[in-house]
């Protein structure tokens, strides 16, 4: 019984993800803006550092670009539902409210990850760094771990800020200080993947623990955010 209930839960979550994907496929506006934003940020970083980017700086520039691009996606995540009034529809679905949270989270994570994966070859070309593409598994690993943290905290914050007067303005202000530890860790690990130096196991542990805490706590608190 418990087992079937869990399968049902996952399927419900995937329905929400599929719905968001279908909506996105019709317009592609979100992916396009996030992707272009990430690239533009990298172009700006390139000229800010006069083209001379050691791996540590490049890793930092990558993560900053990805974080900023994520904010665009996270902001839209609930804004659309509110503009069209479809959030009411989501809330009357006879399912646990956490399904909405995990569905939105997974959708956001997929969008962010997609943007990152598509950007990588271009980053490798633009900055003449072959090593970016040489360890795709390790790199994808840290991208998922880091982006999971950004989307788990970002999703619940987005559900909150959509109800505020300042909306899009507020999300990065609340999000950035919260994800700072993950950003530090992700940059350290990414730089290590490009050029192994020192140890990074503690950073991976830190991000993993962060991910677990901030999957669990928003899951427990999400009900209060969407409650009418």
């Amino acid at each position, binding site marked *: 019984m418990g087992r079937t209930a869990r399968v049902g839960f996952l399927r419900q979550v995937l329905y929400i993800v599929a719905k968001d994907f279908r909506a996105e496929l019709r317009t592609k506006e979100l992916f396009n803006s996030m992707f272009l934003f990430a690239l533009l940020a990298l172009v700006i970083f390139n000229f800010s550092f006069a083209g001379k980017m050691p791996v540590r700086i490049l890793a930092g520039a990558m993560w900053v670009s990805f974080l900023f691009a994520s904010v665009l996606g996270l902001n839209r995540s609930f804004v659309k539902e509110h503009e069209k009034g479809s959030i009411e529809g989501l809330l009357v679905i006879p399912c646990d409210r956490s399904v909405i949270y995990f569905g939105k989270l997974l959708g956001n994570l997929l969008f962010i990850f997609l943007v990152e994966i598509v950007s990588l070859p271009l980053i490798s070309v633009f900055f003449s760094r072959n090593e970016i593409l040489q360890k795709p598994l390790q790199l994808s690993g840290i991208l998922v771990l880091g982006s999971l943290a950004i989307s788990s905290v970002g999703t619940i914050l987005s559900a909150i800020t959509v109800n505020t*007067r300042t909306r899009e303005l507020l999300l990065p202000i609340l999000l950035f200080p919260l994800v700072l530890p993950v950003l530090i860790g992700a940059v350290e690990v990414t730089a290590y993947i490009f050029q192994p130096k020192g140890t990074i196991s*503690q*950073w991976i542990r830190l991000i993993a623990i962060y991910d677990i805490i901030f999957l669990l*706590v928003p899951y427990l*608190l999400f009900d209060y955010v969407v409650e009418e």
Partner: protein
Amino acid sequence: MGLDRKTLDMVLYGILLLGMFISLYLIFLYAPPAVNPTNNQPWYEQKIFYVHVSSAWTGFLAFLVVAVASIIFLKKESHLADVVAQVSAEIGVIFTTLTLISGPLWAKSFWGKYWDWSEPRLVTALILWFLYVGYLILRSSVGEDVRRARFAAVFGIIAFLDVPIVFLSVRWYRASHPPLLVFEPGGLDPQMKFAFFFTLFVFTVFYVVLLRNGIRIKLLSDKLNRLKEVI
């Protein structure tokens, strides 16, 4: 409880007023100046340590109260818990601001520069400041009372959980990026220790007084708004 509110207020004010003077005496006259480890001279700037650490502690205590009040609010929907969270966050931001002013002043005399990104306590204080200024902005940008309280409570809990992780991450960051000398207040002599703990106590009383007054003002202004609506 034999004490009514007014008597308790008078007692607290008395302790606070007297305590502040005693604390100043202890810091500047009773406790000997520390010895500067870099040149073995008397190090008068170190006296800022008493105020700096006490305000950092008070700020942290205030944010702990925000988190606890937030949990209570979500459990019981009590208006008082929400008011406590708001007032405590405001006080916490003020004390953290003091920490962020006094810290760099002290750092300047110790490191020769105002700021260092590898000092976990200082950086954590800065992130705390960002988090709770964000918390107050969030509060001010939600119109409806019940939702504001709920959103703030959720953010208040999430923000507080983030603090130890921020601290850890900056510490590990320091481990991989060579640190400056770090001042460990463990080696204080007994007189300095006494002055320090007394100042800590006075700051804590100060926090309680501010919190009580803040709550009273907030509740009165809520009452006033309700009365205005009736009229």
